[in-house]
């Protein structure tokens, strides 16, 4: 067992799969010699060779496209897009092909690929490096979107993603790449996909969140506990397809729901969670469903970045508002 940060847990997971599954190939810009601009693939090329851990030319559409080709022919590519801000050229390939391969060939060809990308803001990075547009992929049938929020879940969920027979967009909240550490056993055990994780049990209000926002949400929960409000915090982990059973069960217990995400508000994944609970959990609700999100503006450059993001205070205030009459 080692105390590792989230980024290291990712390296461990990729190393495990590279070792145990010869059909796994890691590819992307600067992932080989350089080990990735965040060092997510550090040491892998040295260990497994340049055929299994490939530095590609600079073209995101190409990276997604050849991954689809490899996957359809029996390999398991684990491709990296350097930042979510550069993922958009892949959208054509992912939506037009990765998400459709199984369906349009009636299962004859499938697409077991993973597309990894660091996402999210809060590290004072230049333009385009703080994107949080997971909703684009969540909307598309045929693909999974997975977002870990801790080192152990990063390890277990990435293993699951690589082993999954369907395409997975694996978004890594870069703000918490190195924030803290956890004891992660390198035992090759995957965690289940399509399931939420309850980070904190409570009785008064359910808070659904994911990614780096789990941090602010847990802090808000601690603060509220001191004021007598017991929060249940749920990490979606798999953004799509949603495990709404766990969410509904929780709302049945608490009667209140607040959703927190740093992505922009309109048509963010929070809207889907709210719609499901309004549809299936209406009779359990004691207050309107609320969302604490980024604004419907382009993420500002870093001098105003933190004003855009949900903060502990914004979350606490919104939760309290659900108790007002």
């Amino acid at each position, binding site marked *: 067992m080692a105390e590792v940060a989230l980024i290291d847990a990712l390296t461990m997971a990729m190393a495990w799969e590279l070792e145990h599954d010869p059909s796994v190939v890691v590819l992307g810009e600067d992932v080989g010699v350089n080990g990735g601009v965040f060092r997510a693939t550090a040491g892998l090329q040295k260990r497994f060779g340049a055929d299994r851990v490939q530095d590609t030319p600079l073209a995101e559409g190409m990276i997604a496209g050849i991954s689809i080709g490899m996957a359809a022919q029996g390999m398991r590519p684990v491709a990296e897009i350097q930042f979510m801000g550069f993922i958009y050229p892949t959208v054509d390939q992912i939506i037009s092909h990765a998400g459709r391969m199984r369906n349009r060939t009636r299962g004859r060809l499938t697409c077991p690929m993973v597309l990894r990308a660091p996402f999210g803001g809060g590290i004072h990075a230049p333009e385009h490096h703080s994107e949080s547009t997971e909703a684009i992929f969540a909307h598309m049938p045929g693909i999974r979107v997975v977002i870990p929020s801790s080192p152990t879940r990063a390890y277990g969920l990435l293993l699951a993603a690589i082993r999954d027979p369907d395409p997975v967009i694996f978004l890594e909240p870069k703000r918490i790449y190195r924030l803290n550490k*956890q004891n992660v056993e390198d035992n090759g055990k995957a*965690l289940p996909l399509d399931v*939420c994780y309850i980070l904190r049990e409570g009785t008064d209000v359910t808070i659904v969140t994911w990614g780096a926002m789990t941090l602010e949400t847990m802090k808000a929960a601690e603060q509220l506990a001191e004021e007598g409000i017991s929060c249940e915090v749920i990490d979606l982990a798999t953004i799509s397809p949603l495990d709404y059973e*766990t969410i509904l069960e929780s709302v049945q217990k608490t009667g209140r729901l607040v959703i927190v995400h740093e992505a922009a508000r309109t048509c963010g994944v929070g809207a889907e969670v709210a719609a499901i609970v309004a549809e299936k959990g209406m009779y359990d609700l004691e207050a309107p469903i609320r969302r604490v999100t980024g604004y419907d503006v382009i993420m500002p450059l870093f001098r105003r970045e933190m004003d855009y993001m949900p903060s502990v205070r914004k979350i606490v205030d919104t939760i309290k508002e659900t108790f007002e009459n």
Partner: protein
Amino acid sequence: MSTFNLPDLGEGLPEAEIVEWHVAEGDTIRTDDPLVSVETAKAVVEVPSPQSGVITKLYANTGDIVPTGAPLVDFDEASQDAAAAPVKKEQSAATVVGNMPTGNEVLEETAIPGRSRKNKTGRIKATPSVRTEAKRLGIDLAAVNPSGKNGQVTIADLNQHHQSTQEPQTSKPPVRRSSAPTGQAEPLRGPRRAMAQSMSLHRDEVAACTIFDDADINDWLNKKDFTVRVLRALAAGCAAEPALNGFYYADSMSHQKESRVDVAMAVDTPDGLIVPVIRNVEAMSLEKIRGAVADLKKATMDRTVAPQDMLNYTITLSNFGMLAGRYATPLMVPPTVAILGTGKLQHDVVAVMGGIEVHRRMPLSLTFDHRCVTGGDACRFLAAVIEDLGKPQ
């Protein structure tokens, strides 16, 4: 004196190791001159001096690890030049650029995978608009009988409840359906919870024995006075055989007979069984019994039966057979020792003086605690009950 802290050297790196100092304490340095070389997780980086001045203190030695934002050097105040002035103002802010703080905090794994929790706590189901209306009307949702398809309280339920609490209860109580949706465990509350507890107590302690018989009520002049007649008959039974009217204390193995006949009457409500008590039935005329029963019914519907109205009874009556059920093995709550149950009134074929007639009869089931009551006691009691019930009035 101004302190220069280790800045974020690249998108939020946590710390750096001092590789080489390019100055010593006491040296004079100019803005942009090399100050120190440090190694981060990503690179060996040379940090230039942010200002001119005399170095008065170095905060770390070669080989030390310095966290981002921690003090690195002190400059002598007096030797700052104009260009450095803004630097000083920004220093504390400037050195914590990059909000990817890293730490060595080790997290516990506390996350529970979803769908693995089985314990569910039931809550009252109602739409927010119904909840608001309930609040406005001052209705406790828990008291309302829910009729919604998902087990929720509807606006109609609210209105009905509101009306029924304003008017006296005239109609036959509607058939109660369990309010919880099927398929999930609902913790018991209120009277149902109490019933679970008291029945468990019976099972654990009492040596129960039940005798079954029928009372012939064919000759009744007033064909409808069931509860009142049964109560009088019960009092007659207690008078004939007081052994069944009282308490048995197991610890001391002692039997306490009572002369007062305080009858606990089991009443079925939407919330479950409640058992209010009519006191001193032995001293009441039929009229008085009738009045007491009416009061009790109203109090039950209004939920104004107080806890003390349900304590300290000497015997229990259960008119279980309203809809169906001929005989039963009713269970009393210790320390009482007897409970009489009346089943559904029947039109039975009976033999009368060598011939056949159809008589209206009331099935009776008498459970007694055989630890202190004998079969003989029970039969004497039952015979007196049957005899009183057999009278025309």
